[in-house]
């Protein structure tokens, strides 16, 4: 096919790729942290009996989950400034991914809350604990244990979604790979290395979460 693999050019640019990867990870971590806090609040809102809490929460989750994330990314970077909300590209992307993460994590957490028996809340109330204390000491710790397996795949998805930041020229891993590709014409090598970096990072995330799951497992 007349193409000989030569990784030299890619190795020389490896530092650039690793910098891109570091930015990808940073984008994901910040967005996930924001999304986890808001998603948890949203999960409780979804489960609330008060319509003025559960309705807006459901509308939010439904809209965000039915939008392609690329559309959200482009909308917040190009359309929001027209409406007077102008953010830098990194801030804009982190905010967008956080909005997205909130909706997905809310669903994961809601499913986790569903599995916690009502009797535990009643036992907490009977001792004299407030609902807030019960949430913090009993419900959230149990819910996190229940959701760790499905949380893992959601977090990995969110990390991979950072590649869409390339669409608005955020210099993360995919953006850097495309730049190296254009500058060196080592198409196959560049994308193979970038892919391996994504796969390796995702594997590490999965392994870390599995280790956490084992550590938190309740002996029986």
């Amino acid at each position: 096919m007349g193409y000989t693999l030569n990784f030299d050019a890619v190795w020389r640019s490896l530092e650039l790729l690793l910098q891109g990867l570091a930015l990808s990870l940073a984008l994901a971590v910040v967005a996930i942290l924001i999304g986890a806090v808001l998603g948890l609040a949203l999960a409780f809102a979804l489960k609330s009996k008060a319509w003025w809490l559960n309705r807006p929460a459901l509308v939010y989750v439904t809209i965000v989950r039915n939008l392609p994330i690329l559309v959200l990314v482009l909308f917040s970077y190009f359309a929001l400034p027209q409406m007077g909300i102008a953010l830098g590209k990194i801030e804009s992307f982190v905010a967008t991914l956080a909005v997205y993460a909130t909706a997905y994590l809310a669903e994961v957490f809601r499913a986790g809350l569903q599995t916690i028996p009502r009797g535990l809340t009643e036992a907490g109330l009977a001792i004299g604990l407030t609902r807030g204390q019960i949430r913090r000491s009993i419900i959230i710790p149990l819910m996190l244990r229940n959701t760790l397996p499905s949380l893992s795949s959601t977090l990995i998805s969110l990390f991979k979604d950072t590649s869409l930041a390339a669409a608005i020229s955020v210099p993360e891993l995919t953006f850097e790979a495309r730049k190296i590709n254009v500058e060196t014409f080592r198409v196959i090598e560049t994308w193979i290395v970038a892919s391996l970096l994504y796969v390796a990072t995702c594997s590490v995330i999965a392994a870390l979460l599995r280790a956490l799951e084992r550590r938190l497992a309740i002996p029986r």
Partner: protein
Amino acid sequence: MSSLLEIQGLHKRFGTTEVLKGVDCAVRQSEVVAIIGSSGSGKTTLLRCINMLEDFQAGRIVLDGEEIGYETRDGVRRRKSEKEIARQRALTGMAFQQFNLFPHLTAAENVMLGLVKLKRMSRDEARTLAMRWLDRVGLAERADHFPGQLSGGQQQRVAIARAIAMQPKLMLFDEVTSALDPELVGEVLQVIKGLAADGMTMMLVTHEMRFAHEVAGRVIFMNGGVIGEEGNPKKMFLAPQTERLAEFLKSSSFN
């Protein structure tokens, strides 16, 4: 002697179904009251109103001089604040049919949680006290086991220790032996008997007629949302005054 607990005209509805249709009763300090009756008679609901696990629409519950759950100001009956109700719930202890131990905490930690969060004890103090109560229910050597590693009878004993450690004025037992295998019932009843001997005031919803007969100073027979009959178990079981109680006793396992 005045009553520790006084209930007047208690009415409770679930939607349009009236479950309690005007219950009046009083419990004295150190009294052990068994509540019996067929399912749907309102006995568990009565117990759950006393610690506000259920709201109720009318009536008063007064525990040790405090009106539980509601206050009437300017002729308007209002539910007390969540914080106030939480404080009042700690005046009573409750053990449940399904134990409801916190599965991610050890036996000792289950007992310690309320002591640390509500009585503001240090973990060391709470642990010491928890060990004393676990020892009391015969489970000191299981203190660091998780609920999933304990038998049903052991879990229920931990649950009782968890409630008692908060030093409630009144203990509520809601069919605490119904979910247990027959051979595990005895160990739990033994613990309850010990508490009765120590002078703990208790109300027990139970299907164990023999136990009610043996431990309770008074039996309340709930029938259709009201008290059908009450009195000394020895007399009541021998010579029921109402047709309904006679039928109920015949159909229950007590002979």
